[in-house]
């Protein structure tokens, strides 16, 4: 599902990631932890093609991210849900419209939008609040809406960057419970967080980072590591667009 091979990223010569390699299989739930500045957000941005790595290879769903043209990136993103720490909800739009936007951009017919938004709101237990605007909701509720928006296109991968960073412990637990449910249904989940307590309780694979390096991979096994051997010229990688979401 996701393969990183010796990824390095520099900002004005300062390394943010150094030779990061790992593999995430389909349906896995992975925590990426580490202190601030460890490179967690940079790593997620690279996986989301918001940043380009300076060295190494990134393969997402069989696609070599380096070979993606800018016009193809939106199609990759439609298969990856992203949950932000600051929710990134549009304050002047209703909850319904915030989620519907994710369907509109992929060209979902109007008739189907209503059904799918209601379905996903039900999944996160927020269907009653669909007519409200985000500022009327608590932080936890807003994050649930952000999760609903990330899920509405039924992505195969869900990335979350410090999703509970702005939430109280109880709301944080709700959000993680949601991630767990989503993962149970087959979605691959990668969560960058420094909420150690939750991470330990969830008992999932933990990749620990510090100063841009992977210092520990909780479930390091041959099937997860990609740290040895020469740089693969082509790991059966394709640049064709295998996504079925283009309208």
């Amino acid at each position, binding site marked *: 599902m996701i393969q990183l091979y010796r990824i390095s990223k520099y900002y004005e010569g300062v390394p943010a990631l150094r030779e990061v390699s790992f593999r995430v299989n389909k349906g896995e739930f992975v925590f990426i932890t580490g202190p601030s500045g460890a490179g967690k957000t940079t790593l997620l941005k690279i996986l989301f093609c918001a940043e380009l790595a300076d060295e190494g290879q990134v393969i997402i769903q069989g696609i070599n991210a380096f070979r993606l043209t800018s*016009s193809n990136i*939106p*199609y990759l993103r439609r298969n990856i849900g*992203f949950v932000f720490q600051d929710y*990134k909800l549009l304050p002047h739009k209703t909850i319904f419209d915030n989620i519907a936007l994710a369907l509109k*951009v992929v060209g979902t017919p109007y008739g189907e939008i209503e059904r799918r938004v209601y379905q996903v709101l039900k999944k996160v237990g927020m269907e009653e609040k669909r007519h409200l605007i985000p500022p009327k909701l608590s932080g936890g509720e807003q994050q649930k809406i952000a999760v609903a928006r990330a899920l509405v296109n039924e992505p195969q991968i869900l990335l979350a960057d410090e999703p509970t960073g702005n939430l109280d412990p109880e709301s944080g637990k709700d959000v993680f419970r949601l991630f767990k449910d989503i993962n149970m249904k087959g979605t691959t989940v990668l969560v960058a967080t420094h909420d150690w307590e939750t991470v330990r309780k969830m008992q999932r694979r933990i990749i620990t980072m510090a100063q841009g390096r992977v210092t520990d991979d909780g479930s390091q096994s041959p099937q997860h590591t990609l740290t040895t051997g020469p740089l693969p010229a082509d790991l059966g990688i394709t640049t064709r667009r295998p996504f079925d979401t283009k309208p």
Partner: protein
Amino acid sequence: MKGYRLFYFIAEAFRGLRANSIVNLLAVGTISMAMLIVGFFLLVFFNVQNAMNSLGDQLEMSVYLKDGLTNHEKDYLFSRLKAEAGVRKATYLSKAEALTLFKKELKGQETLIQGLGENPLPDSFEISIDHRYANSQRLETLVKKIAAYPGIEDVSYGKQGVEILTGFLKLLMYGGTALAVLLGVSIVFIISNSVRLALYSRGQEIELMQWIGATRHFIQGPFLIEGMMLAMLGSALAIGVLAALFYLLPQEVILFLSRPNGLDFLPPAVITYIIMGGGVLGLIGGFISVNKFLD
């Protein structure tokens, strides 16, 4: 493009127009001023051209014949002239008929020609010109061609008047084109600025759309339509103001300015072109801003 996507673009464009209503109103006002100037020039141009056409219908040319031509030679010249492109009608005027006409024109002052003895006027053909030939260049070519016929002494027409009108029409055309280009660039600039403001006010939404997989075209669409609508509204307003000014103009002014058939307003096809042209300029302005913003 799927229907619902176009519907989404239009709905979003209207939302954008409403959201920045004051800025957009200012833009529409400024565009309408620019388009008003373009429209005014076109109005003058069309009326001068109409006047030229009317004058062209009345324009006559005198082809003077050399003395001593036989009837057979005159008949040959007559048929050649009638077949000439640009000649609508030709009539023969003998020197005797010409003198009679001349005397009529001198009514009361016949004494001026009493001492001449022999009739000094030549035989001639009076030619009516097709209005499409009513410009100095084409007329001059026609004159040269006819003057080269055997047996032709001279050819004359109201050269000075035609030259003045043709020059004025050229001045209007070139000046108007230069002005239209200049104003077109200004319109693109105005639209580009209005759309840029709309883009900044919706920057958060655009960023989010990029994160959730919106293509460049999907983001561009509403802003292009917004730019197009702004320019079309401005152009339509300009036409409206021009029409109001035209039809509210006092009759005395119209009579003073008008040619024999009166003044005409812009033809519907030209009005359509002005509004569509405005739309294209709006599209260009919107395209420039959106591309700069997304790059």
